[in-house]
């Protein structure tokens, strides 16, 4: 618990640095007033809006105002939606989280049996195929995989919807698209962990008890090899969300990624700032969780 609090405190300066990065980016983006008002708006109106938005203040004053607002959850109004940015972003979050969990689910059911199989049958034909497939899975850009899946399952087979969200069928292709890369990585990880663990003495002990080989592998070896996997998965939140952004674009999945791309294209900076901050906060929380989970899952590490 003490450790957890220490880590929590460490996150505070990180959040400050993130807020600084976000603010600087937008500061450098230039005068938002030119975007918000029509080009032929009178000079006085522009100036009035600038003053209302504190844009004439020096950098550090503007930054302090930004931080103050941020602490109250205010990123300013989105000019495309005409509302506060944060609620719009939070409204899109569940869709992205749904996609992420579905992808992790797909990755897990693929990678655990495959990883174990290729480790227990090392250098067999099956191992060559699985290991080769894992490298291929890492090498494929996920937007291309998504398009190829659409081509196969939607265009040729007509079996699954191309885009949108709603039924479980809508979820299948995006989840596979996002899950493949993760599956490839976990398969490799489980394989190498298992290869190491299968040579441990406690595996020989488990066999010497007369345990069935299935239990030796799936209980004694798997439990040990999953500890680092769970941690690394949580640490991959950042790249998972990164992948989700692209996957959402391919499948028109109405999540955070799609919102963000639109916001970037329309230069809706309030939305951009709010999304980046929400994502960063999410990643930091997941990293903390990874740390705590690792300590929880591995009894060798003392929690006290």
């Amino acid at each position, binding site marked *: 618990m003490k450790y957890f609090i220490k880590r929590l405190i460490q996150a505070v300066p*990180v959040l400050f640095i993130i807020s600084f990065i976000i603010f600087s980016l937008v500061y450098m983006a230039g005068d938002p007033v030119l975007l918000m008002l029509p080009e032929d708006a009178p000079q006085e109106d522009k100036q009035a809006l600038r003053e209302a938005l504190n844009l004439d203040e020096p950098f550090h004053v503007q930054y302090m105002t930004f931080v103050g607002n941020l602490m109250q959850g205010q990123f300013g109004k989105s000019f495309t939606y005409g509302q506060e940015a944060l609620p719009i972003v939070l409204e899109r979050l569940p869709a992205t989280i749904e996609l992420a969990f579905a992808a992790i689910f797909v990755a897990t059911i693929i990678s655990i049996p495959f990883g174990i199989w290729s480790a227990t049958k090392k250098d067999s034909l099956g191992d060559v195929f699985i290991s080769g497939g894992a490298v291929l899975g890492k090498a*494929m*850009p996920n937007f291309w995989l998504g398009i*190829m899946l659409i081509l196969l399952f939607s265009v040729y087979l007509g079996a699954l919807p191309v885009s949108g969200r709603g039924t479980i069928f809508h979820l299948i292709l995006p989840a596979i698209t996002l899950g493949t890369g993760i599956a490839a990585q976990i398969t490799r990880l489980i394989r190498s962990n298992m290869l190491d663990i299968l040579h441990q003495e406690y595996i020989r002990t488990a066999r010497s008890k007369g345990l069935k080989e299935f239990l030796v592998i799936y209980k004694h070896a798997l439990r040990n090899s999953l500890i680092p996997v769970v941690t690394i998965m949580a640490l991959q939140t950042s790249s998972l969300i990164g992948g989700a952004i692209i996957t959402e674009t391919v499948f028109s999945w109405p999540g955070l990624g799609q919102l963000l791309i639109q916001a970037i294209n329309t*230069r809706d900076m309030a939305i951009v700032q709010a999304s980046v901050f929400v*994502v960063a906060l999410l990643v*930091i929380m997941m990293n903390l969780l990874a740390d705590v989970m690792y300590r929880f899952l591995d009894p060798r590490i003392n929690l006290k």
Partner: protein
Amino acid sequence: MPSLVNETSNVKSFTTRKRKTLFSQIFKSRTGVLGLFILTLVVLIALLAPFISPHDPAKVDITATLLPPSWVEGGSAEHLLGTDNMGRDLLSRIIYGSQISLLVGISSVVVAGLIGVLIGLVSGYYGGWIDNVLMRIVDAFLSIPNILFTLVILGIFGPSLITLILVIGATNWVNYARIVRSEVLSLKEREFVKAAKTMGVRDFFILFRHLLPNVVSSLSVVSTLSVATTIILEASLSFLGLGIKPPDVSWGGILSDGRDYLATHWWVATFPGLAITITVLGIILVGDWLRDIFDPRSNIQNDI
């Protein structure tokens, strides 16, 4: 003095032995050879693009739009892989696309490497509050997904080849910084560094003459794998319309063009993705092989 002679000859035999095993290991690993073969091929294609490309990649021909590949009914031998919606030769575009992929991939890794190595060296060597501040900045960068970060910056500054390279470099240095830092932390406790310090060797000299050469092997592994990640990142950005702009040709861009014609003209989106996959596959295989040579038990995470 004879002992000294002896020593140098020992050193010599050690290095030749090392080189010999390195050489034999290239051919021991079949996947390594495959990777090297693919990589060499892609580099040659990129270098020789003007000579081997059958057409001008930008030449529009409205009489020959969306021609299928030559082996499909309706295709012509003139356009081996068919044409896109503007009648441009797909094969030529893919050949020229390799130039951009490799250029962006390698240059941004160089940029990222320079920043990361410098920060890692300083952070690990000086420790204390410098390390603390730098590592919190690293944490902040880690909590914003790479693609998100680059998208936002490119959205603000507008895409161009140079911006793309600089932006990817400026957001991807974190991995290098962490790896160099952790290696420096252990190296600086070693005798030769302590000896250099007590002899009054200047910090600058210690950093670049004693510490840097010792991190080269792990850097080479990480950079190789980073080129793979970066090629995918560039393709993703171009796919989203925020990467390479015409007249430059990028695989991600071709793919994005092809997406609109997916239902009726599968080849436009398929071939560039295949090109990305094969190139990235080659690089990953080389990277994995390098890692096996330098440190068979290393735990460097290569996350895509």
